[in-house]
């Protein structure tokens, strides 16, 4: 047995490994360092945390803010009719929420429709940005300002407004006496083929918050 050769062999292997690492060159080391930093930042900011399935729950007078609009529910009630505005059909009731809404974009928006080719889709679409939970509207929602202003509700940029939105829902909805309103982040899409290229739609994005407020029967 030649035990006297072992230290020399180890030195040769170590020297070989060192040459191999050195031969990787500076660019590869820089790439490895860069990737490590990116991974550390990704993990540090919670990139590996499981996605949250439950939105932030807020209550009355608390603001839900997205990148393009902010909404605060001031109160909510159920009723059969709003004088001069809307009446519920038999078997239905109206859920009426009073909200402070602010348009944070740079162009006017219509709460329930479109204005100058901008369709905000806060209500009255298959996937509205403000969506009732536990109640499926049976028809279009209507909206109006609380100060008696005429016309549809057009929100100017950075000018908050107090409005009421009324959704017709089946009688017996909201049995627990709580209005839950999901607030979604809008995602901007522009017209491509069918619609003109200057048509802007706010499509439903991630759920930002769920507003839960007690409903007062009128």
């Amino acid at each position, binding site marked *: 047995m030649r035990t006297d050769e072992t230290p020399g062999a180890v030195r040769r292997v170590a020297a070989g490994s060192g040459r191999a690492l050195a031969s990787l060159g500076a660019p590869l080391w820089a790439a490895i360092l860069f990737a490590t930093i990116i991974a550390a930042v990704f993990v540090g900011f919670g990139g590996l945390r499981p996605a949250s399935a439950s939105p932030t729950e807020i209550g009355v007078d608390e603001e839900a803010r997205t990148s393009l609009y902010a909404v605060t529910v001031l109160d909510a009630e159920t009723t059969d009719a709003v004088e001069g505005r809307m009446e519920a059909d038999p078997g239905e009731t109206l859920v009426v929420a009073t909200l402070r809404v602010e348009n944070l974009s740079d162009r006017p928006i219509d709460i329930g429709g479109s204005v*100058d080719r901008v369709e905000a889709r806060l209500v009255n679409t298959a996937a509205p940005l403000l969506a009732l939970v536990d109640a499926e509207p049976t028809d279009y929602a209507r909206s109006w300002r609380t100060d008696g*202003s*005429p016309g549809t509700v057009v929100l100017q940029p*950075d*000018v908050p407004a107090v409005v009421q939105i009324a959704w017709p829902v089946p009688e017996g909805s909201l049995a627990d006496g709580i209005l839950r309103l999901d607030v979604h982040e809008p995602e901007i899409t522009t017209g491509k083929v069918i619609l003109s290229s200057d048509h802007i739609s706010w499509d439903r994005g991630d759920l930002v918050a769920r507003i839960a407020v007690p409903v007062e029967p009128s």
Partner: protein
Amino acid sequence: MRRGAPWAIGAALVVVAGVAVALTPPDIALTQAFSIHGGEGDAVTGRTLTAQVRDAAFAERVSTGDWEADGNWLVVSVAASAPQTEVDAAVILAALEVGDRTFHASERVRDSLLGTALRVGTDTVGMLAFELPADVDAGDADLRLITSYSTPQLDDVVVLPLSLDDLPSEAEIEIVAPEWEGF
């Protein structure tokens, strides 16, 4: 050919491609409206509208009849007429562009110039009220007057420049229904 020549040619082609992309107009440029600009206070004529700013002022409150609303209001008095035909001649949409933001004449105000039928050869003088955020009280603005429900494509839009600097500020302005001038 030298070893570096292919790299130089490739880099040059990338630069040319970047310039081509940068200079290519967006899709919207194919159909956008033709803005007809005038000087401040000038009467400007487009295909469907002749208009001139007569007066402008800020107000803390606007009122009409039994309705009133507080806020930062800009009230603009405009004289408008139809250049060729009275069919569908009306200002339907009035937009005020201030910096990056666009504001529309308020739908809240009855008796504004919006929707008023215009005449050929006779000015109709009416008011437009814009509800603005508190930080809009100075600077340059463009008033765009449109005779359809949305900004037209491949058609004229009258653009009237408006300086918001040094405009008078009043406690309340009552919106007066449009009237024919000279009658």
